[in-house]
């Protein structure tokens, strides 16, 4: 649906987007994850036809964003980060105005439907300047959705909302994403993790990583710490563990847990568990440091060799099913904690 090749944008001498290439399929929710100033908004502005790239090519639905800009704009629904609205208009008036600009038919019916969908039906006659931020966001979303676009581009859609509103907007996005292509940007990592089918990590205008949230979590280069708690005899447990290959550096920490670094290429947790149990030591807790998107994000955006790391990481962590199952277990733990 969206196909970008070599997108580059210079503001004067400042490179905001550097040779960015990506694509988004129909019905996919693609996330742009990156720190502020990474080039997310600029990329979106290029996609929506607000500005042209310095070089590179983008097509949406087969239409080129420069040569066939009007067709692209018909296909796309866009909500900028600042949710700009006309304060002196009523909600219904505003939606009517936008519908007419898009030359829609049966405007009144469409407006009722969309207000229902975003939950603003009871405020249809309110002046926009009287609305709260969350409501304005919903009106903005309504404007972006009313023409039932095939592609929805949202710039930081949950910024500034309270937790309840955030959940609502995310639910709405997930629902929309079932039939349409959604491209959203965020710097909230858990959001990207929760909603997106695929995440692109962007830093300083460059694509640093692209994958599903699950895969990205696995791509942490480096080992992860494992914490073990035993009922009795921690010193014996420690020495047993230290005898295992690659675990010579195991130690006892202040919380009276044994900690060691689980190596990158081999998960030794089962081995450790078996060793301890067969030595009749009461193993009561084994916890692995949860690798989350935040770690991946920080690592990838702070590394200087951004281009080189992508390929290497794929090679390291692709076929580790054990890791995957443990990952899922930890994820479910986290989900229940959030609930």
């Amino acid at each position, binding site marked *: 649906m969206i196909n970008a090749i070599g997108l580059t944008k210079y503001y004067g001498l400042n490179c905001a987007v550097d040779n960015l290439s990506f694509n988004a399929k129909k019905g996919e929710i693609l996330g742009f994850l990156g720190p502020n100033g990474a080039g997310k908004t600029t990329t979106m502005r290029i996609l929506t036809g607000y500005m042209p790239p310095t070089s590179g090519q983008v097509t949406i639905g087969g239409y080129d964003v420069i040569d066939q800009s009007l067709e692209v704009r018909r296909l796309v629904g866009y909500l900028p980060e600042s949710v*700009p*609205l006309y304060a002196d208009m009523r909600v219904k008036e505003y939606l009517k105005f936008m519908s007419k600009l898009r030359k829609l038919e049966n405007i009144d019916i469409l407006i009722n439907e969309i207000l229902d969908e975003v939950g603003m039906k009871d405020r249809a006659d309110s002046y926009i300047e009287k609305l709260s931020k969350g409501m304005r966001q919903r009106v903005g979303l309504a404007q972006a959705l009313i023409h039932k676009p095939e592609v929805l581009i949202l710039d930081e859609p949950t910024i500034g909302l309270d937790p309840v509103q955030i959940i609502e907007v995310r639910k709405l996005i997930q629902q929309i994403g079932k039939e349409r292509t959604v491209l959203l940007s965020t710097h909230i990592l858990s959001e990207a993790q929760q909603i997106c089918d695929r995440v692109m990590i962007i830093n300083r205008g460059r694509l640093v990583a692209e994958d599903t949230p699950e895969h990205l979590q696995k791509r942490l280069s480096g080992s992860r710490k494992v914490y073990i708690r035993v009922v009795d005899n921690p010193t014996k447990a420690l020495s047993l563990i230290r005898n295992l290959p690659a675990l010579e550096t195991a130690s006892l920490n202040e919380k009276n847990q044994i900690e060691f670094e689980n190596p990158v290429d081999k998960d030794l947790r089962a081995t450790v568990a078996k060793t301890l149990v067969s030595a009749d030591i009461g193993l009561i807790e084994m916890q692995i440091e949860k690798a989350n998107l935040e770690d991946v994000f920080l690592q990838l955006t702070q590394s200087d060799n951004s281009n080189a790391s992508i390929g290497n990481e794929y090679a390291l962590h692709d076929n580790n099913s054990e890791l995957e199952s443990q990952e899922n277990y930890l994820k479910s733990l986290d989900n229940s904690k959030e609930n």
Partner: protein
Amino acid sequence: MRNLWTIAKKEFESFFHSAIAYVIGVVIFLSLGIYFYILLSYGVRYQSYVPEITLLLDWILFPLFFISVPVLTMRTISDENRTGTLEIIMTAPVKDWELIVGKWLGTYLFFLSILALSWIYPFVLNLMVDPGIDQTMLIAAYFGVSLVTAAMTAIGIFVSSIFKNPIPALLATLGLMILFWIISAPANYTSGFVSKLLDYLSMTGHYYSSFYRGIIDLKDAIYYITLTIFALFLGTRVIEARRWK
């Protein structure tokens, strides 16, 4: 084409939500009313004096429009730019010229409404004076003011598209209009082509030489129409350029 009308209608209606527009409306009609009263009183006292209705146009309406047009056009595009709504319009399937011309049309129609309402004074005067006022002169004068307003509004919209802040837009528009007003002054001190050019460019010159005198001169009308189109063209270019920055 429909977009043009949608935008024009929205812009026209937005003036009725705007405090500035109401203030200006009140000032204009108050001034017109007071001046009309003075004219009538003068006429009543000195029976031979027939109040010239075009005085209303020249002394009240024209100067007030000179100030009102920049004031009301300053925020047309600069506001959209500042609040970010321009981004929404420019990413909607709306052509750049539709935006500019639509904004201009909506604003111009607002001024035309004021002009139309001010007809009440000549109308009343016509009823009171025997055998009636000079209607051709009146029509020509109004026609002229309409054309001048069209041009001034277009310039105002063009300038508004350049700035993000309405205040510089206001000052720049005022400055431009003053420039167009006094530009023919040096014509006396130059000669040949330059002199003719300066003379031609004067906005007020074209009004006072013909419309004011009751003559509808095509060449003067063309001057204003060209100026309007040129300003709107420049405005469209500015909007386009915004994309390419």
